[in-house]
């Protein structure tokens, strides 16, 4: 099929509408946010146009340094754990017959699409004293008394890993399901055990895909804004939580915008990095 270049004005019509919508409702809001990050906050009110760097300067305090460090560290930890679990899982999933894969995929999609509110609520229930998992342990006699496991760092980490796991699986799924099965079969005929062929053939072959997935999940985890609130204490709040907090409760839009811009820069840089890794994989 020949794809012709658009020539007449009417040829451009199909793309004009989506382009207009995306520019109006994505580029413009984004640009506005960028502008607001340089505006001056009016105490008690909203903000007024200006060009100040004060909002960015606030990053330099120890408090935000800590929050930033914690956010990045937490997101990285979540990404590494989620991918470490998701990689062998996805490998096994992709080796199943198609008909067996489908229920798993439906289940993973259902979990992935769950609202953070519901994940947070579910885990806080599971980790609670009254309805939590410790009740089961009491029931089978492993514990004397049910205890509350939430809020706390462990609860935040668990909830976020839970949220990130199906995402990691679905990011890994295309490359793993396209992996040539004869690769491992060849390794097997050369005398490698299944586990050995997995670590010596599958993992190295998809090194870049794994790294790219870690980055994607890292960015995904950076965006988590409710789980740290629902499952953690204020010291476990991340940059995303602070942005929401500043924007809604402190009514400090300029500062929230500055933090958001910063988050965008970090995320974009990482996404570009992961795309480059993906392309490198494609070429080899």
């Amino acid at each position: 099929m020949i794809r012709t270049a658009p020539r007449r004005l009417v040829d451009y019509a199909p793309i004009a509408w989506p382009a207009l919508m995306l520019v109006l409702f994505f580029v413009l809001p984004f640009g506005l946010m960028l502008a607001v990050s340089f505006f001056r906050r009016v105490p008690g009110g909203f903000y007024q146009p200006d060009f100040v760097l004060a909002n960015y300067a606030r990053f330099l305090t120890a408090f935000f340094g800590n929050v930033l460090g914690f956010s990045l560290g937490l997101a990285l930890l979540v990404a590494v754990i989620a991918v470490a679990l998701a990689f062998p899982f996805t490998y096994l999933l992709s080796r199943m017959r198609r008909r067996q894969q489908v229920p798993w995929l439906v289940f993973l999609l259902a979990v992935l699409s769950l609202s953070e509110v519901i994940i947070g609520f579910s885990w806080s229930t599971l980790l609670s004293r009254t309805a939590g998992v410790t009740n089961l342990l009491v029931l089978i006699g492993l514990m004397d008394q049910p205890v509350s496991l939430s809020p706390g760092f462990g609860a935040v980490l668990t909830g976020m890993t839970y949220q990130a796991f199906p995402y990691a699986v679905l990011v890994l799924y295309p490359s793993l399901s396209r992996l040539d099965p004869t690769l491992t079969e060849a390794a097997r005929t050369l005398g490698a055990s299944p586990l050995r062929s997995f670590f010596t053939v599958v993992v190295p072959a998809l090194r870049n895909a794994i790294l790219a997935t870690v980055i994607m999940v890292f960015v995904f985890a950076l965006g988590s804004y409710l789980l740290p609130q629902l499952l953690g204490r204020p010291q476990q709040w991340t940059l995303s939580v602070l942005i929401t907090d500043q924007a809604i409760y402190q009514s400090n839009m300029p500062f929230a915008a500055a933090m958001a811009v910063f988050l965008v820069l970090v995320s974009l840089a990482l996404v570009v990095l992961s795309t480059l890794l993906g392309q490198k994989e494609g070429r080899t």
Partner: protein
Amino acid sequence: MIARFAIRLFLAAMALLLAAPLAVVAGVSINEKKSLTFPPQGFSLAWYGEIFAEAGWRNALFASLGIALASAALAVIVALPLAWFLWRRHAPWARLVQLLGFAPFVLPPVITALGFLSFWNAAGFYGAAWTVVISHGIFFVTLPLVTLTLGFEAIDGSLVEAAATMGADEPTILRTVVLPLILPYMISGFAFAFVLSLNEYIVAYMTVGFTVETLPIRIFNSLRYGYTPTMAAVAVLFVVIAAVVFGLVARFGDLPKLLGAWSPRED
């Protein structure tokens, strides 16, 4: 033998971990008393009735459904011509527009949410109920864009040429060949956007959080006043809706292929 057992154990453990919080919530939702206890004490579906009986939950449910339906439709309507253009026309610059369509979903959602907050505020519509439909429609445009892009790539180009040699002009080809073939991908794109919009919190909260109560917003607001089994019932309802919708997508389409596996017939 041992290896096979270990694999089963690992898969079962992952299934258990994924299902555990949902199972607990399901258990809580059928509790007879209005307290959060597990294992459940007694059995009652009253809390599910509550979603429809209590005006606050019912309104939130209908608001969420309405927003999800409208914004998913908008997402498809924006994505369809874009995906068609990228497939049918030779225009490298159009990739830029495609990139814009992918961006909202890749960036942390709080950023898009804040952008919308600034935008609707500046435009003077902050809090108007319809703004969340547009916001969600743009936020989730990535999903139908991805499924439709896949769908168009799956159409054999010679079908289009065959239609042309038989006398069909471009609009006729679109109507009689392209749209019927792309319909499953349109539906799955709609389904993805619908389910995600239903579950979305932060964008809805930052645009209409103080005027419209969607289900996720209502759950979050209620959390401050303590847990109730109704919240558990709503959570279960959400899981069921997601599972049913994705189950239907899998029933009428090729889910593995939609998620990026090679088609088994492709050779």
